[in-house]
């Protein structure tokens, strides 16, 4: 049952905006650790909590209001230099921020948040009370020049209706005499702030406890509510999107133009059907069609752009994650972001969140050395992890680079053999790049001791699978002693799939271009048999040759003339085909109820012909067990 019936829209808006605010606060907190006295930052963070509190009030999210209020008060003290920022205080603040985030999680399930961890609340109150040196002089004096009669009125302290009129006249010197002011009800101010009593409570027993244990991750909370637990499992995707109105206007404008062109075509059709075919009419038809062509591709672009979001929204969360993890491990790591303005399809941003977190954790946990180790090898104590995004042509490239110890191809091979993932012989045939790629095998983890951070051995293969689901690829470069770089390459959008059209006889098939590395002619004389399989040596790499006809179960009528050098997650190989029909940007239509094995979907060519888009992974699945399936050996020439 929703606690927010009638307010779902408001809740959605609030969550989306508040999430952004909190991410921003998180980043500023990381910056604040470097420059603890930056008043601008303190102000911004104060405002962040203040704004969230304001919105939460309207949702009656009392517990969220309380938590934000306390944190906000703490920042008020900090920015007025009444408190100094210490590492312990920072831990409390981080814990409070996590608390707020957890509450967002509960809210996103339409459940009113449970009260925050009492330890965090206690620590906040302790920090607000206990650690303040002298009792703070009423900040009134520091903020505004108060006319003498007002504090007198205020100090009587009786509760009651706020009397704006009285106060207003008191300070503005209008009618109402000062005696009246003090005798009448007190401006105890407005609609009772929900949290004031809690905040004002003097230091409790909790406040006396040492502060450091409150830090870290909200997941450690012993009394995590059921709602919070649910949240981690099935937090729904955001199903709304914020779009720059200028972009929507463009879409509107283009659809209007298309409407006009359509009208023009309708009238031309009538003319032509009526037998009119003079050069003028045909020229007009030609023009209208060309115009429609242009407009439709503009519209496609514009619509695609409405789905594009700056990747910075995703990146925002990471400095905080890296910082927390580094502290937990006793390392000194700075995550440097670049290219946050790069725009990526929204669904892709969501699907990238987990792989990127994993890669960053991996870099901090495995990539980067401990400070003493770094010193011994003459490096700076602080290590840098760089997270960068940029657009390269029709691809988005994401780079996660660390300046840590790098990866040794030798060790990775040894590990893979030890774990029984590959055989000794296989290991010996692998080059540097292939060896590094072994870390993407399921069950591979080089750390002997499993840490709760990233050593569960379920990570890298999932990362790779997730990236491939997005039609992307991931590549590793590493130099022992210098660091490692992970390079993720993604298509700009998932709506359009660039394909290579190959021909078997005159039947075209579409292959995802992202898997294609190159196209080469197959000369029968260069085919070599290795271990009973046809192979072709391409620049020193021995690649199996697999016939597409065979894969599809067609009779092999003639020897394939061309080979498509393809690379999937599991293997590299050459796919034998008869010929090519070019490349195309396919709009994938899925086959809803009927899905033959090995077919990812269909697309329509410009001439109206329907073409199957092949799912190479599925087609190849059988080959593992039956290597002869794709073999060229038993050629049946017609």
């Amino acid at each position, binding site marked *: 049952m929703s606690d927010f019936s009638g307010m779902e829209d408001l809740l959605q*808006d*609030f969550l989306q*905006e*508040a999430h952004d605010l909190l991410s921003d606060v998180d980043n500023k907190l990381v910056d604040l650790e470097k420059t603890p006295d930056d008043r601008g930052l303190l102000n911004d963070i104060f405002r962040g909590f203040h704004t969230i*509190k304001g*919105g939460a009030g309207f949702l009656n999210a009392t517990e969220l209001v309380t938590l934000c209020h306390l944190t906000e008060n703490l920042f008020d003290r900090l920015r007025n230099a009444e408190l100094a920022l210490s590492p312990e205080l920072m831990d409390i603040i981080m814990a409070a921020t996590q608390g707020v985030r957890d509450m967002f999680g509960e809210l996103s399930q339409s459940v009113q948040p449970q009260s925050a961890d009492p330890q965090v609340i206690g620590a906040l109150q302790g920090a607000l009370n206990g650690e303040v040196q002298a009792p703070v002089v009423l900040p009134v004096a520091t903020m505004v020049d108060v006319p003498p009669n*007002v504090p007198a009125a205020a100090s009587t302290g009786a509760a009651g209706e706020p009397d704006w009129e009285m106060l207003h006249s008191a*300070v503005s010197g209008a009618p109402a005499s000062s005696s009246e002011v003090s005798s009448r009800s007190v*401006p105890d101010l407005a609609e009772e702030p929900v949290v004031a009593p809690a905040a004002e409570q003097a230091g409790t027993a909790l406040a006396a406890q040492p502060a450091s244990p409150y830090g870290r991750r909200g997941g450690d909370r012993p009394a995590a509510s059921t709602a919070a637990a649910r949240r981690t499992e099935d937090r729904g995707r955001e199903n709304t999107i914020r779009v720059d109105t200028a972009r929507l206007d463009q879409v509107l404008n283009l659809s209007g133009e298309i409407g006009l062109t359509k009208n023009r075509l309708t009238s031309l059709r009538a003319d032509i059907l009526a037998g009119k075919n003079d050069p003028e009419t045909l020229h007009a038809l030609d023009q209208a069609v060309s115009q429609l062509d242009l407009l439709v591709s503009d519209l496609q672009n514009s619509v695609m752009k409405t789905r594009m979001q700056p990747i910075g929204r995703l990146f925002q969360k990471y400095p905080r994650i890296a910082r927390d993890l580094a502290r937990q491990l006793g390392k000194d790591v700075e995550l440097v972001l670049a290219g946050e303005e790069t725009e990526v399809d929204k669904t892709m941003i969501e699907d990238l969140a987990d792989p990127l977190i994993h890669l960053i954790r991996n870099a901090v946990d495995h990539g980067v050395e401990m400070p003493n180790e770094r010193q011994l090898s003459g490096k700076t104590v602080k290590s840098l992890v760089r997270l960068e995004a940029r657009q390269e042509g029709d691809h988005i490239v994401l780079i996660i680079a660390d300046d840590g110890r790098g990866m040794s191809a030798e060790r990775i091979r040894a590990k893979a053999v030890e774990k029984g993932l590959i055989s000794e012989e296989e290991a010996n045939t692998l080059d540097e790049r292939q060896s590094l790629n072994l870390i993407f095998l399921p069950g591979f983890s080089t750390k002997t001791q499993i840490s709760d951070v990233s050593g569960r051995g379920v990570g890298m293969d999932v990362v790779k699978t997730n990236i491939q689901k997005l039609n992307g690829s991931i590549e590793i470069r590493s130099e022992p002693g210098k660091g490692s770089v992970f390079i993720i390459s993604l298509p700009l959008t998932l709506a359009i799939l660039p394909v290579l059209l190959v021909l078997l006889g005159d039947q075209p098939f579409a292959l995802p271009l992202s898997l294609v590395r190159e196209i080469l002619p197959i000369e029968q004389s260069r085919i070599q048999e290795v271990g009973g399989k046809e192979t072709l040596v391409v620049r020193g790499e021995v690649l199996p040759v697999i016939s597409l006809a065979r894969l599809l179960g067609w009779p092999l009528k003639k020897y394939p003339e061309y080979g498509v050098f393809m690379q999937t997650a599991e293997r590299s190989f050459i796919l034998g085909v008869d010929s090519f029909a070019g490349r195309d940007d396919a709009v994938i239509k899925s086959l809803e109820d009927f899905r033959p094995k090995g077919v990812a979907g269909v697309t329509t060519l410009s001439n109206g012909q329907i073409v199957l888009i092949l799912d190479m992974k599925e087609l190849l699945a059988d080959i593992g067990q039956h290597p002869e399936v794709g073999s060229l050996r038993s050629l049946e020439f017609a």
Partner: protein
Amino acid sequence: MAADPKMRFLVVDDFSTMRRIVRNLLKELGFTNVDEAEDGAIALQKLQAGGFEFVVTDWNMPNMDGLTLLQTIRSTPNLKHLPVLMITAEAKKENIIAAAQAGASGYIVKPFTAGTLSEKLTKIFEKMGKA
């Protein structure tokens, strides 16, 4: 309420959810002629362009906060007559005093209901009527 339902409001807040809340509350009270601004600086530009009869502003905002906006309005000859209702999550005395001193027409603490807003507006309209 004796006020003209066509009265043009400017709602100033950096949190768009909050602008929507205030706009909805105003709508409940029959005021539909509402424009929005994200901070004091933008608000001031809109106000200078003219046509507004009532300002509802948040306090804590980037670029120019609500108090500075209020002070600027009061010191600008063609704007100083504008009623300004301050909205904030802050219920501290000193804040209310500061708002009063700067010449706010009213002060309202978040969260509030349409009823509270109506009450505050009525008070301001009454005062305007008298003036």
